[in-house]
């Protein structure tokens, strides 16, 4: 573990990513406590440019709402959606992939055809359809993102399990008469974990982007402010007021970039072959 941390810290881009992500999480957790005012409240005159009033440092939007407050409160929604939908996708994808890879044969065929069925549908289009049908709300958005993002997890886990299954220690466990569940849970999955962790960190980034895209199209939860919503709402007035779109856009960019860098860093740190090369 300590070695892993050292690996992670030795990688400068991973470190930068980690700092960004930690900051974003801090803002999401603590921010709304420090700035308790609702981001929906109309506090100043509309279209107030940024850096003119210290009370509204990033200016106001078309209704006179504080852009800074929107970014602080939006962090919570964006990160939470990213995290929860990724966890949900893992909860579906990991067991499916593990079962398919471990049992093989017909079970594998059936589960993989089912997975491919989802993979053939363009994921963003499917997400739009799902949210539109279920009515936009935080739950339908999380569900839609999870539904479109589990197939790669299933395929990755299947591949890992497939190769691990032939290892001697797994064979030994089978010979000693361990139950399938015990073998998958205790022998195989722990060893298949590192690529899944890397994938998950990238999936959070993708999920944040997906949520932003949905909100941008007006399919966000109308009761919650999110970065994508802010960009979408400010888009039409971008010629008069660039700051309404640019600041939340930067927030999305930074957090997605941070998560990607962390993913890269994790990949380097967790990959034994790369680690030995002493990168």
């Amino acid at each position, binding site marked *: 573990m300590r070695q892993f941390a050292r690996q992670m810290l030795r990688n400068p881009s991973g470190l930068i990513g980690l700092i960004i992500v930690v900051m974003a999480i801090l803002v999401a957790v603590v921010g709304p406590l420090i700035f308790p005012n609702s981001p*929906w*409240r*109309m506090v100043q005159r509309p279209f107030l440019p940024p850096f003119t009033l210290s009370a509204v440092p990033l200016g106001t939007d*078309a*209704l006179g709402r504080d852009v800074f407050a929107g970014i602080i409160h939006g962090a919570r929604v964006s990160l939470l959606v990213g995290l929860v939908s990724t966890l949900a996708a893992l909860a579906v994808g990991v067991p499916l992939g593990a079962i398919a890879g471990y049992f093989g044969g017909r079970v594998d065929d059936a589960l993989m055809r089912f997975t491919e069925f989802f993979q053939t549908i363009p994921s963003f289009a499917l997400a739009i359809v799902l949210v539109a049908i279920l*009515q936009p709300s935080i739950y339908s958005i999380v569900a839609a993102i999870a539904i479109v993002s589990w197939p790669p997890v299933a395929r990755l886990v299947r591949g890992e399990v497939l190769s691990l299954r032939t290892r001697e220690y797994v064979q030994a466990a089978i010979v000693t008469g361990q139950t399938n569940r015990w073998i998958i849970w205790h022998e195989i999955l722990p060893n298949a974990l590192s690529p899944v962790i890397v994938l998950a960190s990238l999936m959070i980034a993708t999920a944040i982007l997906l949520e932003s895209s949905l909100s941008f199209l*007006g*399919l966000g939860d109308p009761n919650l402010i999110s970065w994508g919503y802010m960009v979408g*709402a400010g888009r*039409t007035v971008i010629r008069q007021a660039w700051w309404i779109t640019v600041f939340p856009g930067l927030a999305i960019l930074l957090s997605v970039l941070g998560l990607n860098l962390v993913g890269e860093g994790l990949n380097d740190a967790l990959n034994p072959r790369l680690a030995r090369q002493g990168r």
Partner: protein
Amino acid sequence: MLKKLALSVTLACLTAAASAQEPKTGGVINAVIQPEPPGLMLALIQNGPTQMVSGNIFEGLLRYGPKLEPLPGLAESWTISEDAKVYTFKLKPGVTWHDGKPFTSADVLFSIEMLKQTHARARGNLGQLEKVEAPDDLTVVFTLKQPFGPFIGIFEVGSLPMVPKHLYEGTDFKTNPNNNTPVGTGPFMFKEWQKGSFIRLVKNPNYHVKGKPYLDEIYWQIIPDAAARAVAYETGKVDVLPGGSVENFDVPRLSKLANTCVTGAGWEFFSPLAWLWLNNRAGPTSNKKIRQAIMYAIDRNFAKDVIWNGLGKVATGPSASTIKFYTDDVPKYPYDPAKAKALLKEAGYNGEKVRLMPLPYGETWQRWGEAVKQNLMDAGMNIETIATDVPGSNQRIGDWDYDISFTYLYQYGDPALGVGRNYVSSQIMKGQQFNNVEGYSNPEIDKLFAEGANATPDSKRKEIYEKAQKILVEDVPVAWMLELQFPTITRCKVKNLITTAIGVNDGFRDAWVDK
């Protein structure tokens, strides 16, 4: 014993410069039409863009000035009998259809019969009609079952367009090939329609008003994106942006451009009034005190100044100020959050969830929904926004499945035509969005609107409707927001475009371009 009505044709010239100049003949105008109309046969289709294009192809018996005063159209004069039941119209002689056939009283009789089948609003407007006769080619006599004050207001081109009998009689109206190449009596003739691109109208050389129209051609440009429409104006591709064709926040920017004229006139006949449906049947909004609290809680001046960029007017009650028998002598609901809080407390409201449904008509309405939600939450209400698309919103309103819901409706100049339908209990019918959706039921209001429609003379109607407005404003069956204004933006060289109560819809008859 007939009472002659004075016929003074005073077309108000809206730009002072225009009235001073002599109109020039010739020129082509590019105007935006948004969205692309589903068809141009006005007798079959009456949505906004169809009326805007086809109002210049077809004509009605009358036109209406900015104060909704009747002006001669295809009828050059008219008389109303003393008992207010017989309306006699003298048609203008020498009027021909675009294909050269003469326009006569037979066409009027046919149009009435056809519109009763194809035009829901015309059918309603003609409900009091006992018979219509044509003693000669240029005379039409309408006889009513009982006096119906608003009757003189139903002859506008979009409400009662004249249809050529020789092309439609005995055919299936819906599949008649002329629907694609409409033939009217109007100043412009249909020439071509490139779907998704433009609709082209050309001058009617045989138009019955000598010297008019002044323009040679009109191109109605179809541009699906609001930002692209604004750009098309800026780059000079189009010269006329009719009301509603660009987003509100673009209006101030475009208005400041050189040689640009903006007017809010030309919507008096429609008088779009925006309000919140408040469900009177169930939930917190069934309590009158809570409904009044909602009126006090909402900052309607903010909505006007910020969301609508200062366009429009704060509504005082069920009638827009531009329609007949309007009075502002009603209870007032200024923005007063403290009073709203007090009323909520008095009503025993304890934080029940109230669902708010914004109108899914684009950015402006979305922002307005957010602002109203914030106002109501500041007053202590627990509001949850429901996001829907257009069919979803229509369905929920029609099924009465809402607590608060945005809408705006046209009022058609007379309370009997466009106001009563939203408040009388006989109009409580599931599945529609334009009737008494809120479920307000008050026998006194029912009685007043029933009397008002048939009362004579007008002074009596005025008394009745003023009383009705007072009662309604006290009861707050719905929360009136704004009288909307849809500004028309034009290049200043386009003169005299908006002279009537329906603006661009029949405005090209008198429009000209200063070169």
